[in-house]
């Protein structure tokens, strides 16, 4: 099972990074989404894997539970990355509407401008 989880994390990471390195905002967003899947599973796996030991306390008997802490951390991470993704999407959209293309690179580097002026 560990190899399944590890390889999934690896493939998600690789896919995410490849897309993150693309030149358009949309694939970059997809890439970051994949990366966030990857890192969530990675974080989850830091509590080690366990089958059918959910950390829901059983009042009536002895039971063993998986490590609940990474799960809580992943939940926090999921929520944060959701907020981040939302902002990223909106900023990408704003950039697209303002610049009329969805490239992520700045055409003229530091000194370039997008050829569009604010006021006119």
């Amino acid at each position, binding site marked *: 099972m560990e190899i399944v989880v590890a390889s999934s994390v690896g493939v998600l990471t690789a896919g995410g990074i490849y897309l993150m390195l693309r030149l358009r905002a949309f694939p970059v967003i*997809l890439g970051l989404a994949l990366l966030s899947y990857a890192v969530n599973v990675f974080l989850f796996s830091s509590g080690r894997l*366990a089958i059918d030991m959910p950390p*829901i306390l059983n009042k009536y008997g002895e039971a063993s539970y998986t490590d609940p802490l990474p*799960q809580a951390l992943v939940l926090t991470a999921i929520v944060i990355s959701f*907020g981040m*993704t939302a902002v990223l999407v909106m900023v990408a959209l704003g950039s697209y509407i303002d610049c009329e293309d969805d490239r992520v690179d700045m055409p003229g580097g530091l000194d370039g401008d997008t050829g569009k002026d604010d006021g006119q």
Partner: protein
Amino acid sequence: MSDGASLLPIIAILPFLGALVPGLMIRAGRTACATFTAIPTILALTMLIVLAPSVMRGEVLQAEIAWLPQLGLSAAFFLDGLGLLFAGMILGVGLLITLYARFYLSGEDPMGQFYTYLLLFQGAMLGIVLSDNILLLLIFWELTSLSSFLLIGYWKHLPEGRQGARMALAVTGGGGLAMIGGMLILGHIVGSYNLTDILTQGEAIRASEWYLPALILILLGAFTKSAQFPFHFWLPHAMAAPTPVSAYLHSATMVKAGVFLMARMWPALAGTEAWFYIVTTTGLITMVLGALIALFKDDLKALLAFSTVSHLGLLTMLLGMGTKLAAVVAVFHIINHLTFKAALFMTAGIIDHETHTRDIKRLGGLRHLMPVTFVIGTVGALSMAGIPLFNGFLSKEMMLEEAAHTVWAGSVWAVPVLATLGALLSVAYSLRFIAHVFLGPVRDDYPAKPHDPPFGMWAAPALLVAMVVVIGVLPAAVVGPLVAVAGGAVIGGGEMPYYSLKIWHGVTPALYMSGIAVAGGLLLLALHRVLDRIWLAVPRPEAKVIFDALVSWVAALSRRITESAHNGAVSRYLAILTVATVALGYVAWRGSGLSAPTRAPLPVPPVVAVGWVLLIVATISVVTMHRSRFRALVLIGVIGLMISAGFVYLSAPDLALTQISVETVTIMLLLLALHFLPKTTPRESGAGLRLRDAAIAVAAGGAVAGLAYAFMLRDTSSISDYHLANSYEGGGGTNVVNVILVDFRGYDTYGEIIVLGIAGLIIFALVETLLTGPAARRLRNADLSRNISRDRHPLMMVVATRVMMPIAVMVGVYIFLRGHNQPGGGFVAGLVISIALLMQYMASGFAWTQARKRIEYHAMIGWGVVIAGLTGAAAWLAGAPFLTSAFGYIHLPPIEEFELASAMAFDLGVFLTVLGAVMLMLFSLSRLARHAGESVNIEPMDYDPSKRVETAEGGDR
């Protein structure tokens, strides 16, 4: 500290305080400015005079104020002979310059600014010569660079002024930076930055292995400041400054700072071979080269500037010789040079002021038109030439005498010959100054009608040339004591060498050399026209051109480096980040080993393997098909589904719930955004680039997988054992994950909902900006319509969602209420309710649903954040820390026992924030779409057939 010594810091600070005054009276008249500038100078000078007697008696006055003891930097001042000499020069000449500038500058020039800069400079210079701490000295040293930058660039509209100022700053500032290094090393060797300590440690310093680097770095500072070859080039360009500045900085004070420093450090650094060869050689070259160039300069100020370079070389050479006598001679020549050179600069200024030109070739015959100026200029120039009865002669003779006894690399001729050559050239250009400016016939083509200036303008140079003569005739009486005490200070106490200040020393080698110099000088003057033609014909490297080329080369190189590195390609930045991370991670990993695995891997059931295949194939497909954006989104759906299922399998039901709901909302968000964006991604990167990216990606993926595999197979003890043990007793819940979220680590959760709240704010603000800015017009003109289908709000969907809505709300409430004990909680509940609402929006359209909204999403976020915060803060009422929870079990027959926990209020905050944020995000995107011209629905469904019946019955279809 003697009583008088406490005046030292006041003397040093006075000019800085004084600088504020003219700076504040920008619009005041010239006289007022000059007066207010003179006051602090006079005050400081008075104090100096008060202190002078004790110094002349051989006392050293010291005053120290602690400043930065951690560094060994203190505001420590001391006054010995050398300091007294220089401080007197700085203040005395400063006063004269103040007077002179009052008349020299025109009414249009911003006077207040000028005098402010002047006083700043004066203060910096005073600081240098009074510092008893080399770090403090460094501070004043750099301040002179800065204030001279301002003074040289004073006429900011002139390109020469700006360029000259920048050049001076670059060269002297750069030298100053080198000096920082040198001084820190020096302090390191001695263990103190106190100058008086350092001066007593000469033996140790010279024996240290750090001596040579320290020496070189400090000399770099001195040489750049004193315009020594090859750093001499900045000084002539600094002549773009107003003449008072040139007279002050470039003859009397700033350029002497380097010489001062060498003199100051003489006991500590001088006397070694390295010192001798570096300093003497540099001085010698500078002296000859400066004089040679001066001879062919037609600009009066340039001539004087190169003459100054030459004389600074002379002083440097003397200090480099390392003999006590040479050092004393240097001190004497410093005084002499000050008097005649300042006078000459002022003369040049007067000529410029009156004739509107400084070009020697356009001048001549002025002795008739400007008799007073003629006398002043001639006396100064004769002194500069080293003609007897003027003070320049005395020190030049002594210099030649010293040179005659100096052996350079085994050669007894090298130094004497070159020194004589320097003197010869000096005679030539000095006499040329007299002959070509004042002598000859009166011309009729001066740019302006020349006549002598008002008294105020010639008073200062006149005073100086008077001193030239007085010292020239009665040296021992007038400056003898001063030379003795200053010279004694330079050589660091001990026995004074034998010397005598008098005109006639008998027939010495120096006399022959002097004679040769005067004769040769006259000969050169006679041949000047011919030589000038040759000079102009011979190609020479032009220092300014080289410097400019160097600076623009550095600037261009910097620009190229900067712009090629920061080219705006974020994809490359990310690639670099990834590569750096993988590489450094690998290095860290290789630095140690790993224990043997302690956990046996869990088995992989076939269904899990199938899920794995789905996940992997979907991920690879997202990558390979990503250019079709919609397809990629569908595939992302598969990945999210598999991960959620995986969480269920791996005992994380809470994660599964959260993952699947977040996933759905995210996909809706992406679909809403994709509506505006292009539907495909063009192929823009070539095969090579894609291969490179793939390699980076695979390396990173492999690294991460390896890392995960490594720790998953090894046991560790976690703090979560405590959470499992205390969740129910201490946190009142059986869902340990939820108790961690709302209690053990509620602070994280509080932060997390704030992230969501901020996201909501940003999105709202962004949409407002887009809709009110110029982008709004582009948006209005955008055609986003995609009317593949004509039915917008199909009846079936509307009916189904109406039924779903209350049920979904029930599910939301259920998930909320049970979260503390079973999988669920405020976050998932918020998402469930948002999804229920979203169903309505999708089915019945934006406008219709929006009209039924009761609470502003904005407010909902605000309430959520505030409720969560206040719940946490409520613990304060009980004196407990933020977020301390309370819970209790309530038994209300006939209902079974139920629990009330403060964590629920906190979770309510979470719930509201999540709901508000999600809805606000989607709402904002829809706002954009409507702005892009989409029509609005009033009715929930496209067409209600039951209405058809009614209207048909009304006969009005």
